[in-house]
């Protein structure tokens, strides 16, 4: 199979179809719309269900319905639309049914703009709905990876009967890259035993998220927590670059991750010992790997297209064993490689005093004349 030039959004759509996605429900929103539009012709072409919902609330509850029927089903949206899905996602999560959602994140809060952003990390990873819950969250950094993670999303959703959110920032949705598309998988025809397919020759199935007594709901929550613990144990994925001898470890995902990579190349060319950990799963988070790195590295630099959200998970992993610094852009602004390189260089020079003596964390702020930006360890 040769490579083709794919737009991220369309690649995700085609990848979903090839992974056997049987139904798509969605609502237009930039910068996600090409995904829906692609589905609108491609799903009928392969005899599957495409329906444009009346809203994101409608869409996620249609997903819920089709998921209850034991179908591979997905929706996609962008930040404000995803916010509207919080209740529905909480229901889906509570019901142990598999579902896949793609959030092509844009600048917020509010209506914001349509430029790429990563400011829905908390919403996805900590979970913006009510109740104790974390979706599995995947974050590709290229079109090829988006294709692979889309297939993985369906597999994980099904394996764990769980909600999977794939977060792209707008630029991965919009960019074109050469990528290889996997073969078309056959749609799985037998339905899971729990699916709502009519009580033919079996006792009725009920899918519900109400458990009126606290004993029952607590037991159910313990089951959900067990599932999450299992997921944390088995499904951590990340990519490493130049970590072997790194004094300074950058942590960045998605587009920020590949921009960081450019900056690191520049830094390595100058002989600076810098590496990158790029989480591919945001939940489960590569906490252990970071904890190990915390013993080796002298400092961490988290780069996000947000005010610093993943930053907290990095700090939770590092637990004060090394300073964790932050560089972020917001509101649809994308950091440029040279910008990050400057920060990296500054940090590396400040690291010369070999022992980190503290743990500073600057609030998210782009460097400005009056603000020298992130400084060395202090």
């Amino acid at each position: 199979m040769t490579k083709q030039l794919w737009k991220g959004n369309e690649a995700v759509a085609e990848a979903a179809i090839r992974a056997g996605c049987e139904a798509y429900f969605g609502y237009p929103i930039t910068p996600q719309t090409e995904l829906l539009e692609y589905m609108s012709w491609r799903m009928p072409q392969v005899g599957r269900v495409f329906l444009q919902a009346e809203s994101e609330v409608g869409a996620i509850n249609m997903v819920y319905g089709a998921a209850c029927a034991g179908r591979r089903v997905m929706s996609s949206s962008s930040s404000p639309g995803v916010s509207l899905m919080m209740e529905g996602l909480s229901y889906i999560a509570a019901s142990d049914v598999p579902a896949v959602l793609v959030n092509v994140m844009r600048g917020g809060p509010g209506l914001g703009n349509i430029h790429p952003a990563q400011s829905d990390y908390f919403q996805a990873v900590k979970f913006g709905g009510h109740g104790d819950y974390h979706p599995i969250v995947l974050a590709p950094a290229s079109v090829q990876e988006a294709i692979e993670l889309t297939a993985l999303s369906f597999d994980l959703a099904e394996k764990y009967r769980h909600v999977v959110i794939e977060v792209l920032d707008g630029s991965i949705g919009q960019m074109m890259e050469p990528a290889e598309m996997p073969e078309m998988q056959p749609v799985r025809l037998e339905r899971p035993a729990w699916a709502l397919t009519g009580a033919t020759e079996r006792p009725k199935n009920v899918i519900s998220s109400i458990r009126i007594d606290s004993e029952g709901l607590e037991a159910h929550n313990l089951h959900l927590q067990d599932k999450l613990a299992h997921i944390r144990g088995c499904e951590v994925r990340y990519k490493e670059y130049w970590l072997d001898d790194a004094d300074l470890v950058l942590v960045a995902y998605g587009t920020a991750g590949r921009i960081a990579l450019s900056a690191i190349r520049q830094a390595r060319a100058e002989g600076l010992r810098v590496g990158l950990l790029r989480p591919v799963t945001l939940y489960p988070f590569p906490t252990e790997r970071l904890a190990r790195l915390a013993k080796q590295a002298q400092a961490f630099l988290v780069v996000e297209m947000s005010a610093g959200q993943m930053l907290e998970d990095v700090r939770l992993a590092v637990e004060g064993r090394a300073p964790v610094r932050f560089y972020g852009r917001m509101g649809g602004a994308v950091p440029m490689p040279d910008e990050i390189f400057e920060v990296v260089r500054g940090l590396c020079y400040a690291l010369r005093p070999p022992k980190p003596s503290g743990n500073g964390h600057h609030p998210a702020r782009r460097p400005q004349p009056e603000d020298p930006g992130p400084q060395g360890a202090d």
Partner: protein
Amino acid sequence: MTDMQETVVFQRPETLEDTYTNYCPGCTHGTIHRLIAEVIDELGIRERTIGVAPVGCSVFIYNYQNVDFAVAAHGRAPAMATGIKRVQPDKVVFTYQGDGDLAAIGTNEILHAASRGENITVIFVNNATYGMTGGQMAPTTLPGQKTTSSPSGRDVEIQGWPMRVAELLAPLPGVSYSVRRSIHDPRHINNAKKAIRTAFRAQLDGMGLALVEILSACPTNWHLTPVAALEWLAKHMLPYYPVGDYKISEGLQ
């Protein structure tokens, strides 16, 4: 007399689970559950029927009927039913929804399911109040009716006029059937059942969304005895919500 034998002329339908309900005494959700169960039995569709329960007093309907069930988020049953039905058009899918569920928070979902002509059956139980949460004003609460959130009676100047769902949805081309029934006496109960049967038939014939609005009593939140509640329904609800056929598509008569 030798050729006489005792036969059962009325018993629980099979689709009604052999259990008691947690409804209040005199709550006619129970009656409506039974009618649906009888229709499912009579049409022989139990094994391919999937119900979608609302959030409301009837959230536990899945305990009372022996068919596959999903419980939707408050108001979203039509969307959930859309998802279920679109991926398995051969199944029979119905939603069961209260007036808070369908006519307040879920108006968008029912309206668009109707507009799209989703091939589902909707049983809409209008008891003019939010039963489950303790009797607040619903969109269908009558003018002047006192509830826990309209304590001096619904004031149409402030809260607007009650919503007539069967009439509102009837004109939509996607709707095959839209009628209103009541369960306050045996005759009306029988008519309600007939309508429910027609609404399922419409789905079996692939005609689009079929809705039966059923006036139902909530003695608890109306602060009336069960018997008085049925009288109140007949006296106060019927005039504003006339029992009638607002749309019967050709082929359903």
